[in-house]
């Protein structure tokens, strides 16, 4: 429905959008998320031609938007701007009916639209239609902003942090409303936020942007399970662990900060590092960084010879697991085995981290009772 093809944009010498390509399907609720300044608003505004790409094409229903009349294009796309943008000189009714009037709807028609829409958000026509924006609460203004975008039933609605400035309770309520409206009216919605909770709650698809690029475009479930980068993980923060214990994967519960040493390291040096890290075992790597095995402190104490390499003492007894394993499955393994930890391997047999009894218990605890933060 909406297709971006190699779209780039610079302001001055700053590249704001870097060769963006993606597609939004009809009827989807798509959320653009990412850190401040990453280009979300710019991307959004390109869809209704408020911002012109330097290069690349944007198609809506197969038609290049640059070949359309911008005014007509915009009348077919609802738009809720970052700061609400209700016209203060117009009443609620006038604000909502702006676009229908521009489209020359007869009076009865736009009046009934205003009535219907106000009803939908539980703001009775008699009470609110003739109020001015300054006479409404922030939440009510946001609602009217959304209604104004919906008034001419555009198939596409763009929303730029529509609930940014609201208290959590009002925001929750409005999110519910918008989600319901979208399902009921089958709109394609492109929605900008930098609140991951909002994104997870509303989106069919989340587009994660950073520095003018898309880092990941995926369903909320997929993004939770497989965040494509650290910054996405950071954004998800506690949500990553806020799933039930049954949905936890090894990678969710592993520790990534572990002591890894090359095979060729001298025994004394290795002892020294273990001492500094305060650990009594160490993961040993082959030259190509793949997993070679582990060495326990006891092994060094019993068989270690000064000047020899640690690789000679490697044992492969410690069980290894893949990072995509269910946490549940490794729990038994961990409890049964004589080892206090399991080594987690990536698909290419490099070391991703390890799971200790403590790290696993902690993750399960968080999943059951929520993070402590």
């Amino acid at each position, binding site marked *: 429905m909406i297709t971006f093809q190699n779209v780039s944009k610079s302001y001055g010498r700053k590249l704001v959008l870097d060769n963006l390509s993606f597609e939004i399907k009809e009827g989807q609720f798509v959320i653009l998320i990412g850190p401040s300044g990453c280009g979300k608003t710019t991307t959004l505004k390109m869809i209704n031609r408020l911002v012109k790409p330097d290069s690349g094409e944007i198609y809506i229903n197969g038609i290049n938007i640059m070949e359309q009349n911008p005014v007509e294009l915009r009348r077919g796309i609802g738009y809720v701007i970052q700061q609400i*943008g209700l016209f203060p000189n117009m009443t609620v009714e006038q604000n909502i009916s702006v676009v229908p009037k521009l489209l020359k709807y007869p009076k009865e028609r736009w009046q009934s639209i205003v009535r219907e829409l106000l009803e939908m958000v539980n703001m009775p026509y008699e009470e609110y239609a003739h109020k001015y924006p300054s006479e409404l609460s922030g939440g009510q203004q946001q609602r009217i902003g959304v209604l*104004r*975008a919906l008034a001419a039933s555009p198939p596409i609605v763009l929303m730029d942090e529509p609930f940014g400035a609201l208290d959590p309770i009002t925001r929750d309520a409005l999110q519910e409303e918008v989600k319901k409206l979208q399902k009921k009216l089958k709109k394609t919605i492109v929605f900008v936020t930098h609140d991951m909770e909002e994104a997870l709650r509303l989106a069919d698809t989340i587009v994660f942007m950073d520095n003018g690029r898309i880092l990941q475009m995926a369903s909320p479930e997929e993004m939770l399970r497989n965040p494509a980068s650290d910054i996405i993980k950071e954004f998800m923060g506690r949500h990553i662990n806020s799933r039930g214990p049954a949905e936890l994967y090894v990678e969710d519960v592993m520790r990534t900060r572990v002591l890894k040493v090359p095979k060729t390291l001298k025994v004394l040096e290795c002892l020294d590092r273990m001492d500094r890290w305060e650990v009594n075992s160490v993961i040993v790597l082959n030259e190509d960084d793949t997993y070679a095995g582990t060495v326990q402190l006891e092994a060094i104490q019993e068989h270690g010879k000064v000047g020899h390499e640690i690789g000679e003492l490697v044992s492969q007894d410690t069980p290894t697991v893949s990072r995509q394993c269910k946490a549940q499955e490794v729990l038994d393994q961990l409890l049964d085995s004589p080892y206090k930890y399991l080594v987690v391997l990536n698909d290419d047999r490099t070391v991703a981290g390890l799971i200790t009894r403590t790290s696993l218990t902690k993750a399960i605890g968080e999943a059951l009772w929520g993070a402590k933060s």
Partner: protein
Amino acid sequence: MNFIEFVGRNRAVILSSLAQHIYLVCISVFAGILVSIPAGILLSRHKKAAEKILAVVGIVQTIPGLVMLGIALLLFGVGNTPALVVLSVYSILPILRNTYTGLTEVQLGLIEAGYGIGMTSSQLLFKVQLPLALPSIISGIRISTVYIVSWAALAALIGAGGLGDLIWTGLSTYNTNFILAGAIPSAILAFLFSGLIGAVQRLATPRGLREVKHDE
């Protein structure tokens, strides 16, 4: 002869001077409005040029009234025309400046919202920008009017009549009564015009703005 008697005796002259004065003020402010509002709209769309043009207009404004009258006299001869031209020129700046600021102070978000939902730039102007700038524009008109009421007194010097006639007569004959008969009505006139336009301004302020801006 005291002042009251003087007024009684010269009622006809004073009233006709007053009428002429009001005429001069109204016509020139009206002309000023006709020029400055479209010009202000134009300037608001060319912000870079605007600052410079406003500065130039500001300089014109500081040319002493007498010099301007002299020039006008040379160009148009004696009578109403040169006076009206000069007064109109003087009335431009406050209205122009206020139109410009009123329009440019409309929040960027509103303009973006307007374009974003598919308004053309003239729809945006008439439905959003001008209504929102109206209070500021009217206040410019108010400043201009009060200004012109006093400037118009100079017009008598080039034969345009008005209350200035009485004042200049008084000044040249050392007759206080004449001076007062010119000065007092023009003070009252300025006061009334100001009050009247103030009332219009309040009426013209969109209700949605009144609550926010002036919580009286």
